């Protein structure tokens, strides 16, 4: 009887999880083994053909590479920036609430709105960047229209958007640190840098792990800006894996191949999360 009661308590959550998470994941895996069906040509079992097609797809490799650079470019920078901002607004400074809010504002704005604003930062000649550049007689640049700069431009925007969000976590963690530690360090004559390196940062490790996992997932999940900024262009130079999945599914209507790409994305993210927990956990001190 006790078991039944326990299971009953679990059921609502379990139904939602199975219905909206586990079943779709399994169905995606299943779909990736079939061809895309139309009324004229019904779907049939093709085994691993879709995966073979994937390895031959140059755009897939390109967007995967882009995603790698995107992750590498955004994660460490936005975390470092978040930590810096958190340390700064944790101190007693005038108009602290205002500064905190200012740092947090980008997070509150919807990505599409943000991208529309940044689009006009980057627009050649009439954009903010070029207007500032013109003041110093720097020649105008076609920021988003040049494959060498397009991806970097989207990265800068995402860092700006993410850092404030991560700052909140660091800020919360900093405020839970006991003040005695700092007093003790002061008595011992430790420098601020030494105190940060040996006390604050290690104590923030659980937060860093949490933020890192989130940042990694976000670097694969955030593609809203591409719809506004570049549509993945020029020539896929700024396209990311999830945006490519969207194109395959809703522009090419190739649900089977989109499923295949989704499976790759799932495996990638699961692998990364496990690796992060395994590697970083050793350096995390939970209290």
């Amino acid at each position, binding site marked *: 009887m006790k078991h039944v009661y326990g299971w009953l308590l679990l059921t609502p959550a379990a139904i939602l999880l199975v219905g909206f998470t586990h079943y779709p994941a399994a169905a995606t895996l299943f779909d990736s083994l079939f061809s895309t069906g139309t009324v004229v040509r019904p779907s049939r079992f093709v085994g691993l053909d879709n995966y073979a097609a994937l390895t031959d797809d140059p755009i897939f490799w390109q967007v995967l590479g882009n995603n790698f650079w995107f992750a590498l470019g955004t994660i460490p920078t936005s975390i470092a920036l978040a930590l810096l901002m958190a340390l700064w607004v944790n101190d007693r400074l005038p108009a602290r609430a205002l500064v905190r809010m200012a740092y947090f504002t980008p997070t509150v704005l919807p990505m599409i709105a943000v991208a529309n604003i940044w689009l006009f930062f980057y627009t050649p000649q009439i954009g903010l960047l070029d207007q500032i550049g013109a003041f110093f007689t720097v020649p105008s640049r076609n920021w988003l229209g040049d494959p060498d700069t397009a991806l970097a431009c989207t990265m800068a925007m995402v860092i700006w958007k993410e850092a404030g969000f991560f700052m909140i976590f660091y800020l919360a963690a900093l405020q839970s640190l006991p003040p005695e530690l700092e007093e003790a360090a002061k008595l011992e004559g430790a420098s601020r840098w030494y105190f940060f390196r040996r006390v604050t940062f290690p104590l923030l490790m659980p937060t860093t792990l949490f933020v890192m996992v989130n940042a990694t997932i976000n670097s694969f999940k955030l593609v809203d800006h591409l719809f506004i900024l570049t549509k993945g262009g*020029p020539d896929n130079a700024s396209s990311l894996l999830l945006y490519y999945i969207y194109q395959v599914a809703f522009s090419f209507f190739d649900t089977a191949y989109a499923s295949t790409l989704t499976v790759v994305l799932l495996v990638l993210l699961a692998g990364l999360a496990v690796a992060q927990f395994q590697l970083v956990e050793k350096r995390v001190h939970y209290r």
Partner: protein
Amino acid sequence: MRSLFALLLAALLAAAVPAHAATEITFYYPIAVGGPLTKVIDGLARDFEKEHPGIKVNPIYAGNYDDARIKALAALKAGQPAQISVLYSIDLYELLEQDVILPWDDIAATADDRAWLKAFYPSLMMNGIYKGKVYGIPFQRSTIVMYWNKDAFKEAGLDPEKAPANWNEMAQMAAKLVKKDASGNVQRWGVMVPSTGYPYWMFQAFARQNGHDLMNPEGNRTNYAHPDVIAALQYWRDLGAKHKVMPEGTVEWGTLRQAFTEGKTAMMWHTTGNLTAVKDTAKFPFGVAMLPASKQRGSPTGGGNFYIFKKTTPEERKASLAFVKWMTTPERAADWSIATGYVAVRPEAYETPKLKQYAAGFPQAVVARDQFKFATAELSTFQTGRVRKLLDDAIQASLTGQKTPDAALKAAQAEAERLLKPYR
């Protein structure tokens, strides 16, 4: 308890058997709910119902073209009512492959109906006909035109009333229109052609002007690698790389209108759909002209058509036909064109007093119509999303200098061949 049951039963019966059996048409229309056009469409549906008491029209607003197509197809799959829809004109082959649409010829019973099928501009019908049958009735259609800044022309010593008529003129005039500051930075470009969002659409204009369409009417063959087509892309590339009259790299579709109205480019190629917005924001006199010619003039059309779905009863088909015919009468086409900036879809509409009067006050509005005789279908094939993206990528790779037009288009053509072979 029993009386409650009886009441329920009565209510159910009343719901199942309406007083007079009206035919209902569910009509999917691609626009976000709450936009100003929903009011126009709602109003049209109510007016139609007043004139046709036996028919009820339920418009369903369904986001952009992609959303509308996904929602309409999902409704059909789920067995929910969907009789007609305005969908992207280039979705034709996709809808054919899903086997969900019906040719209007099969429903057109009377001589009047059949005459109606021929009442539209032929260039607008190209995206709607497959194997001799009409599947798409043009409704909200646009085309590409050239906008030019008359003040900039004056400043550069050019005739402000004369737009370039051909490619050479455009390059030469654009060169005169480029304005640089003391340190050699460009203040104003000569011309801009957008190359994000819909690069294939712009490129169709270049290719057509150089004498070629990019696909066959059956939608199973592309023509990306013809030497004249490659030359067309070379010209586009040269505007930036050789003539230095256009920024190098891609030109953003979304911000181009601002670049033009802020005077950062003297000419731009853009959709007629921007006409009203440019009219409202430009602080200088501007002109609208047909696109320049190489071997001939040319521009693709774009926009949405009426489709009728297969899963319909004979009554619903009759009612749908009546509705679509009513929506495309010359008077309504004229109203629609004035309200939205889309082109009126049939010649008679331009003969109506309303549109004549409007055009007299704003002659830029009829340039698109005059260009129709040179217009061609928008790029649409089987596997259209992929085939189109191949071209988009090739164009962007050339404009950014990563590949030569020759190499980029040949690779795109080879891949398109592979995709389209099964459809021959």
